[in-house]
């Protein structure tokens, strides 16, 4: 197992560096950071001054090697746009994004697991159809649209929650719902499928024969196995929440990593984009690894296998 984890960790770092190289090259092709920093009507001499200040007059490959050398020493450079070490920028915002990500995951679990279980236990009834409708709707609705509709409903018309910002827990309710809703369909459907499969299996028949019924049968025997595939999907979804909060954080003006990513891309802030892509890639690989480990922990057959 340790060997497996080490292999996956090495793969994660390789993936992260490969993605960072691609991002570096593409950003340098697409934008000129000096112009982005200086602004639309900046004097060309000011632009040149900025270019020299940040060493942007050097060839792209020299800058990448420079960045890579620093990254290997744990120094990810200084943001052109924010004029701060990028590690500090990330540290300042990671808590906000994690709060949002875990809140969103909570929303997903709170909606998708009961809904999936209800759908499975009431197969082909109106409840099942309703659950399917929820899943299809949540999948079809874009995040930004849902976000603004919720703002209009619950911040403008019924001023229960703030429109934007991240100062209090109330600021996180609407964005957590928006971000969490997008994960409801896959989790709910997996839960439904898994539970239907489990409920038809031999050991459940045996449990029924031993007198287990209702909640006891569901919680003590069926759910544990039905949750196996769900757990791994939830882990991957958490990665999506961390890396995929760009739109939600921008719509709700939440000062987290997602918004930082958007600001950095628009501002051609290459060092910040680099570290964010590096982190997002690592998070995705790490979450997949976590999913495998959790599955192994929950299912002894996998450990033996």
């Amino acid at each position, binding site marked *: 197992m340790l060997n497996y984890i080490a292999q996956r960790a090495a793969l994660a770092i390789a993936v992260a560096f490969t993605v960072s190289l691609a991002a570096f090259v593409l950003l340098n092709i697409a934008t000129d950071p000096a112009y982005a920093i200086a602004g639309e009507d900046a004097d060309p001499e000011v632009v040149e001054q900025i270019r020299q200040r940040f060493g942007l007059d050097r060839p792209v490959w020299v800058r990448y090697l420079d960045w890579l050398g620093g990254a290997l020493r744990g120094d990810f450079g200084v943001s052109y746009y924010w004029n701060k070490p990028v590690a500090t920028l990330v540290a300042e915002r990671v808590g906000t994004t994690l709060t949002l990500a875990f809140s969103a995951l909570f929303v997903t679990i709170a909606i998708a697991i009961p809904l999936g279980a209800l759908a499975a236990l009431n197969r082909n009834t109106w409840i099942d159809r309703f659950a399917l409708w929820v899943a299809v709707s949540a999948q079809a609705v874009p995040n930004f649209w849902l976000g603004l509709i919720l703002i*209009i409903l619950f911040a403008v018309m019924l001023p229960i929650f703030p429109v934007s910002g991240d100062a209090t827990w109330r600021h996180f309710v609407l964005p957590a719902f928006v971000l969490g809703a997008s994960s409801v369909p896959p989790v709910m459907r997996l839960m439904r499928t898994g539970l239907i499969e489990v409920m038809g299996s031999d050991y459940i028949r045996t449990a029924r024969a031993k007198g287990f019924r209702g909640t006891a049968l569901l919680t003590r025997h069926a759910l544990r196995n039905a949750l196996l595939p769900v757990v791994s999907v939830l882990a991957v979804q958490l990665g999506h929440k961390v890396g995929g909060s760009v739109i939600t954080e921008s719509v709700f003006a939440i000062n987290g990593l997602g918004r930082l990513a958007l600001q950095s891309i628009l501002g051609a802030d290459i060092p910040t984009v680099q570290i964010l892509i590096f982190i997002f890639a690592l998070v995705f690989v790490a979450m997949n690894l976590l999913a495998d480990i959790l599955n192994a922990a929950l299912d002894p057959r996998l450990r033996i296998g």
Partner: protein
Amino acid sequence: MTARLHRVLGPFVLAAGLAFGPGIAAAGPEDDTLRAAMAGEILNLDYLYTTRREYIIIANMTDARLFSMNPETQQVEPSVATSYEFVDDMTIEVKLRDDVRFHDGSLLTAADVAYTYNWVIDENSESHARTLISRWLDRAEVIDDHTVHFHLAAVNPLIIRDMSQRVALRKDGTYHQGDEPDFDAMAIDLIGAGPYRVVSFNPGVEAVLERFDDYFGDAPEIGNVVVRTIPDIGTQQAEIMAGGIDWMFNVPLDVAQNLGMRPDIDHLAGPDLRVSFIVLDAGGIVQEDGPLTDVRVRRAMNHAINRDEIAEFLMGGGASEGLHTACHPVQFGCVQDVMRYDYDPQRGRELLAEAGYPDGFDLDLWAYRERPVSEAVMSDLEAIGININLRYVQLETLNQARAAQEIPAYIGTWGSSGVPDTALIARVHFSDTSDRHLSGDAEVVEWVLGAEQTADQDARYEFYRQAITRIAEQAYWVPLVTYTANYLVSSNLNFPLDNDGVPRLENASWR
């Protein structure tokens, strides 16, 4: 992305907003706090190290300069300085008030002024104002506590204007507290001398300002100003509908017009010094002997554009107009009795035929702003037979391609930093050192340069008259339209609009 979101969601937000009426007021006169939203992040409060419009708005509240610009008359007026006088051709003596205090309570003296200017032009300062100020300043010298001599490196007509707009005054030694200069000394904890002082600042999130009671000038009427960064225009709309903000700017016309119909929100449309235009490769710099080197082709393109309809229907707001000069009509030196090209597509087709292009020609037209305007221009040009390949790109991409001399024609815009003087647009677009200059006309370059080398306003006016007239006659540009600045403000806010298009929150008051 924000613009895309807005386009998709704008109608939903507007429909709901209009249908359900006013939200609950949170901002406003109750706590004497004006809450303003800006899409661009405020990252640094030191205007000596920033450039964008958002920073100008903040700096007008937090900083004091030697002189001030009267937005109505566009004349320079005393501020920290009481007067100025040319001691000789290359020396200006500036007298200072004796009651100006910085936000930390200390009195401003000549040493602070001299330090600020000498630091700005120091080659190690990396100040964004350095390029501008070092064009004319050699050094500033303290004569006594309230007198400074500015020793000039060159005569420049915009010296006093630069003193009134570009250089925010700092305390002596501000950037030299340690062994190394600290460029970020004022980035967060700003000590200015303006009408508002900074209470707190979270970069990219929020700046909280309060009225500075020891301000030497007229005190602003509103006690507190909070400037929030809200990147998404849809979210800004929701905030103003919910009463979370009182003021937003750079509002798309359709949004401004629709939300302005609500009883609790006003749509204000004011003039803006920004103009748009097409720069043509008249000098054959990109394509030697290309079609754009023929004046008849360039005139044909000028006749092809329906400026008035673009101004009315795509820019809108009432303050936008068709443009006929390579400068904004209110700018000094921007003469208007130049050759005009009325909208006449038939004349355009005839001119193309005369130039040997009866079937038109292919042209790459680059653009980065206002896509609807770009598409209208494309359509107008195609109507006279020019086959346009519209290259709609990010500004940075356009800048790179232009620097590599790959652009035969592009739709540009210029805001002149809100300065009503033709120098601000001419020097960048008609200078030999600028990649924006594609006319290849040495005389125009000479006239523009000449206007920058004399302080004699009559002589400057004559230089610009010659340059602007020639540019129009030779159709080096296709001038398009002037811009409108659209704002949405709470109906309980009185927000005066100025001719230069610079929003001055410090002049706002409650109704």
